[in-house]
């Protein structure tokens, strides 16, 4: 990105002054190095989002922002329904409620090392991953609707996990306001064999060890110590979310014209929050959030089953579950007043600061855990929300590393088999149905996740607590 057009406010905060059709300024949180590496399209997209009706304060981009569809990935924008605010399918993304979940295992790295080959094979067998894989939970019409209304709560009621899990999931595992009747038959059909599947692309299931602690007090409150083994699950709402995204992109492109909303890019398709299409999308999108929460809950159950075969005593309680492609109704302070806003986070994680009532009571004092996924060869991070983050970008932080290289470039540079061998030498076992898939996801094809997380911390968006390194990675 050409940083000449940006106004530097601090080393980690850069503004795009309001001009032309922009209703608010753009604000990018990143280091100068990350900013220079960002595609120029991110600048354009931040500016385009700033032109949408009812946008409040600013169009934000997180340190891992990259070129998305309409909205940048790593984009955060809030809209006020009282000011003609809009809801946008492109502002949420195709993989609705894609997110990261972490589980404790109570095990130590020395427990895992001797059996990690067996564990890797077992997890790969138990958790369906990759193109063409199907889950073992098949839902009829009635159960599909119950799942879409109930989310992880539905899954727990069906025996996948325990009620204690729900306390560690955003919305306590059930997104209110979901309307299964707003989800098309095609979307439901596309999902019928996909419950409890990881998917492909950058989705994964990892066995990780806590490698570093940055904040002793918070790590202690979260019961995290170096050498502890955690599980990380990264996936979303599968075919159902993709189909809803596809259908509403088109519906909203048509609706925007009807409502006289000028779109600088068709992909910014949106509709007024109070319109019929807007309400229909919100109902369907919330159902997809429940689908993602139920999906991660079923996968959690499969992981627990696998662990119980090797470690019959092990319990795998839920540490936390975050979603990074959502639109949620939240109360925020704007110009000294509390406002009810529709906050879009696309490739951005909610990161509420200490004391926020939506944080589970036993974690409220430390701030909301923020789980940042890395690549197969690098690290993942656990951060917590900060008080100042609430005023910087509605309590939001980054979501991952973000690609630095196209899939095509990656397959020219690496061979899947070689990537797997190289990682094995570093002690990381990869299991995947596709060598090409592994090559496309090679660690070198991503930006440095540590630089992204450091920028989020320096900008004040969230605070680093721990770094986790992969031991086993099941890749879709």
């Amino acid at each position: 990105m050409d940083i000449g057009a940006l106004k530097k406010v601090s080393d980690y905060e850069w503004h795009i002054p309001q001009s032309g059709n922009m209703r608010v300024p753009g604000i990018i949180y990143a280091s100068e190095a990350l900013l220079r590496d960002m595609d120029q399209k991110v600048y354009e997209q931040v500016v385009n989002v700033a032109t949408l009706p009812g946008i409040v304060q600013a169009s934000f981009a997180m340190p891992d922002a990259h070129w998305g569809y309409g909205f940048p990935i790593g984009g955060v924008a809030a809209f006020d329904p009282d000011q003609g605010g809009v809801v946008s399918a492109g502002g949420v993304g195709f993989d609705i409620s894609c997110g990261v979940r972490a589980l404790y295992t109570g095990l130590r790295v020395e427990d895992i090392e001797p059996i990690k080959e067996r564990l890797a094979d077992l997890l790969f067998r138990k958790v369906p991953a990759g193109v063409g894989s199907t889950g073992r939970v098949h839902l009829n019409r009635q159960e599909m609707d119950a799942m879409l209304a109930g989310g992880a709560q539905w899954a727990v009621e069906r025996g996948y996990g325990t009620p204690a899990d729900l306390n560690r999931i955003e919305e306590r595992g059930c997104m209110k306001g979901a309307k299964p009747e707003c989800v098309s038959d095609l979307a439901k059909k596309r999902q019928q064999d996909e419950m409890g599947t990881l998917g492909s692309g950058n989705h994964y299931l990892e066995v990780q060890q806590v490698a570093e602690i940055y904040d002793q007090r918070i790590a202690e409150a979260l019961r995290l110590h170096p050498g502890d083994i955690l599980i990380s699950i990264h996936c979303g709402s599968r075919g159902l979310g993709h189909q809803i995204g596809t259908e509403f992109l088109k519906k909203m492109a048509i609706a925007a014209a009807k409502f006289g909303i000028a779109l600088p890019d068709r992909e910014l398709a949106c509709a007024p929050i109070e319109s019929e299409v807007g309400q229909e999308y919100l109902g369907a999108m919330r159902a997809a959030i429940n689908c993602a929460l139920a999906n991660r809950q079923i996968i959690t159950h499969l992981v627990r089953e696998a662990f119980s075969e090797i470690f019959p005593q092990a319990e795998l309680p839920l540490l936390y579950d975050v979603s990074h492609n959502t639109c949620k109704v939240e109360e925020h302070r704007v110009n000294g007043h509390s406002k009810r806003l529709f906050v879009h986070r696309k490739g951005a994680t909610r990161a509420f600061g200490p004391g926020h009532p939506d944080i589970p009571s036993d974690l409220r004092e430390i701030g909301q855990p923020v789980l940042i996924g890395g690549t197969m060869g690098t690290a993942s991070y656990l951060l917590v929300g900060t008080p100042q983050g609430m005023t910087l970008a509605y309590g939001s932080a980054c979501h991952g590393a973000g690609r630095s290289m196209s899939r095509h470039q990656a397959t020219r540079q690496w061979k899947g088999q070689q990537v797997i061998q190289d990682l094995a030498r570093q002690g990381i076992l990869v299991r995947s149905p596709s060598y090409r898939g592994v090559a496309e996801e090679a660690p070198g094809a991503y930006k440095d996740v540590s630089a992204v997380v450091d920028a989020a911390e320096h900008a004040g968006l969230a605070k680093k607590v721990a770094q986790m390194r992969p031991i086993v990675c099941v890749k879709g």
Partner: protein
Amino acid sequence: MEHGAIPRWEHFPHDADIGVRGIGTTKAQAFEQAALALTAVITDPQRVDPKEERRFSCEAPDDELLLVDWLNALIFAMAHEHLLFSRFDVTIHDHRLEAIAWGEPVDRQKHEPAVEVKGATYTELRVQQTADNEWIAQCVVDV
């Protein structure tokens, strides 16, 4: 882009995802090639035997939305029926598309599918005739 055999397909880069582009002497041929490029995101189309056929019809207000609808119809069939396609016969009249696609069920050993396509997007979406009278049909797909 003006050089090379016709019809043909190619991929073009996008930050996180990938662009599919079909090039042909007619609009319909460009749509067929774009569909091949879509399969190539997942696997080598030459590995997919055209054993089963599926019929598609789509209608949209303009050619560009028609391309997105066509690719999304294929993406739905691939996801719902676990199929891959390698041969396409497309006809287009007044923004209405009729097509037959031939392919087979995904076989993880035979096809080694790399990645699943979530949806066709409006990013870099173009259906147009070039100065050389070639038709180009392209967009970015989300993977």
